């Protein structure tokens, strides 16, 4: 069985890493860009819990190095495809002049030859998709303030 390539995504943010970092480890700030409920204990072994609509994402922090790097496990309890803690996400914040380059690497995703899971896709993926793609955190409006 081949080991799948990690997924990567990146973005440039017009703010220094120290400004961006809290959005990755502070529950109140995190749910403004992903999910609607979070319980985060940002230290090695600490809880990483994020609810995105009907999907519960659960894992543990593996490494927390403000303001440049955070690593946590990521999965969905009860999912055959990505059980709780089964995949690993590493987020790197690299300063570039006044900006930050955010690089996200999602490791350990399941290999692709899994047609037996066809049935599971439509259900477990449905919630993930709706959850994670929900544009309800659209930043156009002013947020009501703190938590």
């Amino acid at each position, binding site marked *: 069985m081949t080991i799948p390539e990690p997924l990567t995504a990146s*973005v440039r943010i017009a703010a220094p890493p120290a400004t961006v970092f809290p959005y990755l480890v502070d529950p109140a700030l995190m749910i403004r860009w992903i999910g609607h409920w979070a319980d985060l204990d940002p230290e090695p072994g600490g809880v990483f819990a994020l609810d995105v609509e009907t999907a519960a994402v659960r894992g543990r922090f593996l490494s927390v190095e403000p303001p440049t790097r955070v690593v946590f496990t990521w999965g969905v309890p009860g999912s055959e495809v990505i059980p709780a803690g089964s995949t690993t996400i590493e987020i790197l914040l690299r300063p570039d002049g006044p900006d930050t380059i955010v690089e996200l690497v999602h490791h350990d995703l399941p290999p692709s030859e899994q047609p037996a899971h066809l049935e599971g896709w439509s259900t477990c993926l449905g919630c993930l998709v709706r959850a994670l793609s929900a544009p309800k955190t*659209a930043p156009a409006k002013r947020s009501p303030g703190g938590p």
Partner: protein
Amino acid sequence: MATSGSGTHPHTVSAVHGSAAGDDIGAVTDVVLRALADPQRRRILRLVRGGELPAGEIARQFAVTQQGVSHHLQVLHRAGLLRERREGTKRLYTLDPQALDPVREVLADLWPSALQRLKHIVEHDQTSAGDHPPS
């Protein structure tokens, strides 16, 4: 996606980016999920995962009309789950191996959009807060 902003109106630019990204991903995943939601279509996928089959051969396996099967094949093809090849008058179908990993596909779409939201929110907060970034 190529909305150009001078940076002088970050609120407006954020709004355009946010909704456009959401719509794109919503539309794409919607097509895939709807294609997978039907038990007959999932059966077709299992049927062709071992290799290429002509449409007629697939239709013979089902207790529905050839037209019905054709429709299912088109839905699966449009969703990117099946590859279609023509050989004379025959249409041959096989599972697209890349479509076998929807988790990966979904996440491959989602992370960039999530990071875009992160970008807009951080930059929006920066703008609103002036020189007082949130701690």
